[in-house]
Each structure stands twice: as structure tokens, then as C-alpha cells.
């Protein structure tokens, strides 16, 4: 699936007229937006998110580990993404690509810097043991806009996660039996990525459209609109005025995605 030059030009021409190949408006997400919770019984929390035909899964695993010396009263979080060769003919097996690393780090920052999880509540015994949360995000079908889909899947998986039971005598974790205790999630960050093609701004690009962008800005905001992480990509510069417009659009779309997500969380 190579985006041909002619197609790139077509996408840019259409964008200048406010149009897209699939007839959506520039600020419209694909349909359906679908979220399924608990798609993996072996994970402590999990979700599958579909935006159009982009499909991703996220799974939360908990482990008890030694606390870090500089944060003896806190647990930790880690985000990992796997761009599976199963999900797109351009992906190959092997060590994570820079695309995968950037994606994981941006989602990680959105959650970490929003202080979405109360890391102090993950501490079991200060200076000794704490819970560490790993969120693995996996692509099933990548047709563009992985930042938004993966961010949504990560949040949905975190919201559906329960601690496993711990044997009070041996301290061994029984992953097969979950407690009724949820993760201490105090904020709910969601990333939205706005793409700039020519002078047009658009959201939710397909894989084809992603091959034609000049700049992009991912903005993670919580339910109160506070920004917790940003990442600019692409080689074209952005003016302050454009950045301001992008943040407004991202905040608006984050409210939209949050409302879509909440439809499935009950």
C-alpha cells in the first residue's frame, strides 16, 4: 500500500477545497466508532476500539515490583505499542520502529503527565513493593489515526481494569481471580491529533491521508480540558495562530470522542 504521488496531490487539492476522498468533512470522524470492553480474560483490563476500519486493542497487566529509589512511595506505569505486521502490509517483524516508539511515548505522556493514575495509591509498602501498570496497545487493522484510536483504547482498558487477588500469606498473585477493586484513575486524558495538509486542518486521517500531511499536532486533554501532553510531527512549521486553532479543534473533538467512549462504558 504505497501512497502514489498523484494521490498525495489529489488529497492536498481536495483538502484545499474542504473535501476528502471518502466525502467526509475535514473535521468529521469516520463511522462507526465502536468500543468493546473486556476482550481479553487474561488481562486485568482490556478494550478493543474501532474508528472506521482502524482497529486496535489495549490490555492492562499489573505486576508487583520493587519501588524505585527516587520514588519509594509510588508505583509506576508503562505504555508499549506493537504495530503488528498482521495489521498492515508495511509493518515488519523485529524491534519496534520509531513510529511505534513515538506512538507509545506520546500516549504514555498523556496518561503520566495528567497524573491520571494516583501512583501513590499503587504503593503497597513504601521503599519495598508497589503495583506497576503496563498498558500494551496492539494494532489489528491500521488504516490511519493510530494516536487517537490507541489513546482511546488505553483509557478504556484502564477504566475496565481490576486488581488481581493476592495471597495474604505467600504474597503470590492469583491472576485468574480478580478483586472488585478498580485502578485509582483520577483523570481521563484522551489524545486528539489534528493534521495540516496545505493550509487545511483535518482530523481522523486514513492511512492514505497520513501519507500526505505536512504537519500534525497531537493534543491530550482531560475531561476538564486541561492539556497534559502534546507532540508535533511532520516537517512543516506551525504559526502560533494555527497552534491555537488546532488546540481548539482538538479540545472540541476530545469532548466528542469522550462522549462516544462513554456510550460503551456502562
Amino acid at each position, binding site marked *: 500500500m504505497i501512497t502514489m504521488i498523484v494521490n498525495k496531490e489529489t488529497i492536498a487539492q481536495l483538502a484545499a477545497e474542504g473535501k476528502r476522498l471518502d466525502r467526509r468533512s475535514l473535521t468529521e470522524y469516520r463511522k462507526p466508532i465502536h468500543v468493546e470492553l473486556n476482550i*481479553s480474560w*487474561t488481562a486485568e483490563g482490556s478494550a478493543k476500539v474501532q474508528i472506521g476500519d482502524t*482497529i486496535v486493542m489495549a490490555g*492492562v497487566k499489573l505486576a508487583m515490583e520493587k519501588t524505585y529509589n527516587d520514588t519509594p512511595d509510588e508505583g509506576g506505569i508503562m505504555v508499549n505499542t506493537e504495530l*503488528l505486521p*498482521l495489521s498492515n502490509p508495511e509493518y515488519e517483524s523485529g524491534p519496534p520502529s520509531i513510529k511505534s516508539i513515538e506512538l507509545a511515548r506520546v500516549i504514555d505522556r498523556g496518561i503520566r503527565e495528567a497524573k491520571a493514575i494516583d501512583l501513590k495509591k499503587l504503593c503497597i509498602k513504601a521503599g519495598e513493593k508497589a503495583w506497576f501498570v503496563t498498558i500494551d496497545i496492539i494494532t489489528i*487493522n491500521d488504516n490511519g489515526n493510530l494516536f487517537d484510536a490507541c489513546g482511546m483504547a488505553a483509557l478504556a482498558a484502564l477504566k475496565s481494569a481490576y486488581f488481581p487477588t493476592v495471597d495474604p500469606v505467600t504474597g503470590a498473585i492469583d491472576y485468574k481471580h480478580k478483586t472488585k477493586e478498580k485502578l485509582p484513575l483520577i483523570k481521563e486524558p484522551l489524545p486528539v491529533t489534528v493534521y495540516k495538509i496545505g493550509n487545511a486542518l483535518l482530523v481522523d486521517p486514513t492511512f492514505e491521508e497520513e501519507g500526505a500531511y505536512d504537519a500534525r499536532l497531537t493534543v491530550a486533554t482531560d475531561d476538564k480540558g486541561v492539556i497534559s501532553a502534546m507532540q508535533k510531527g511532520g516537517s512543516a512549521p506551525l504559526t502560533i495562530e494555527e497552534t491555537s486553532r488546532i488546540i481548539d479543534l482538538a479540545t472540541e473533538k476530545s469532548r466528542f470522542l469522550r462522549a462516544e467512549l462513554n456510550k460503551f462504558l456502562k
Partner: protein
Amino acid sequence: MVYTKRVDGRKLDELRPMEAKIGIIPNADGSAYFKMGNTIAYAAVYGPRELFPKFLQNPKTGIIRCHYSMMPFSGSGERIRPGGNRRSQEISMVMNSSLQSVIDLSAFPNTVVDVYVDLPQTDAGTRCAAITAASMALAHAGIPMKDLISAVAVGEVDGTVVADLNYDEEAYDAVVSDIPVAMTANKKEITLLQMDGEISKASLIKALEMAAIATEKIYQVQKAALKNKFTKE
């Protein structure tokens, strides 16, 4: 004590509930989903496509490459480190020879057909579910095939031969043998056979005969899913 009542209450030859779907990964040339109890496999086929590095190319035929992988959160214990291990490499290899026996890529020299199978949750029988899903995905991709492949694990738990062991049975506190078997649908020829544990020859033959009946049931589910997909289109 003899093992007469199975841990999950199934009859001795009863398989776990199955579900099969075709075409769940739009980017792929062929794809399938297969669920056997709590084990789920997603399979995608890409190709025939040009094979790199070039020295691997065979001018007489295309080749098939299987890639088996468990998702990091798919084990019933701790998180699994991504990136593969010796176990996943071996399973990929035995899948390869199992599927190779029914496909014919002589019309596509110098090419490769990549088969990716990833599992989001597991409860034993993962290589069998992977082969069953991969076989459907190959058929969906239109790869020339002589037959479909269906796979199941059979074995003996504390003296009783059973089909489709789950994790609790594999880990049962007695003599247990676990025998993953893949068979062609029509001739019931064995294309994958592994075994660990302890079993007598008589029980082994009985188990293989049970596998022939079990794979027939799986084949019916595979066939129905493929028919359903192609009559809709």
C-alpha cells in the same frame, strides 16, 4: 481416582464452544478469527508478494512464512515480553510445515505468502487455534489449496482420553499427555503432531482417532464461516 468428570463438565469428546469469522482485517489479503473456548486467534495473510532478501527467493515456487505470537496480555499469568521467544519460533515452524502440505504456490515463483497469527487471550490449544485460523485466512486470500486444515489438542488425563484440553486439564495433578494434532479435512492425514507427557501406544491411537472426529467438527465450523462470507459477497 479415575478422571471421569472433566474439570469444566464437558463430555470426553466434547469440544469447547467455537466461533469463526472471515475477513475481520480489511488490510489483509485474507483474514480470519477463531475462538475455541477461551482461546482466541486472529490470522492475517499477506501475499503472494515479492520476497526479500532476494537470496531467499525460490524460482520454482512461492514460499509460506508463518509468524505465531501471543499478545503481551494474553497469558493467564504475568505479562509476556513482546518480541518472540524460542517457543513462538518453534510453533511458527511447525505451523509452517503443517500448512505447507496443502498449499500450492508453484504458480507464484520468487514470492512469499506471510501468515500472521496473534492471540489476545489464551487457555491452552493456542497452536491448534492458530493453525485453524490460518487455514481459513489462506482460503479467504484465494491461495491455491488442496484442502483445509483443522487442528485440535487431544490427550490422556489420568487414564482417560479426552479431546480439546483446556489449561486446567493440561495442569491437572496426575499423569497428563497433551497431543496437538492437525489434520486435512478430507483424507484426515496428519500434518502436525507433537506430544508431551506420558501415554501408551493404545491410548495414543485412540486419541488420534478422537482427533479425526474432533477435527471434522472444527472443519464444519470453518466451512460454514467461509461459505457465509462468500455467499454474502
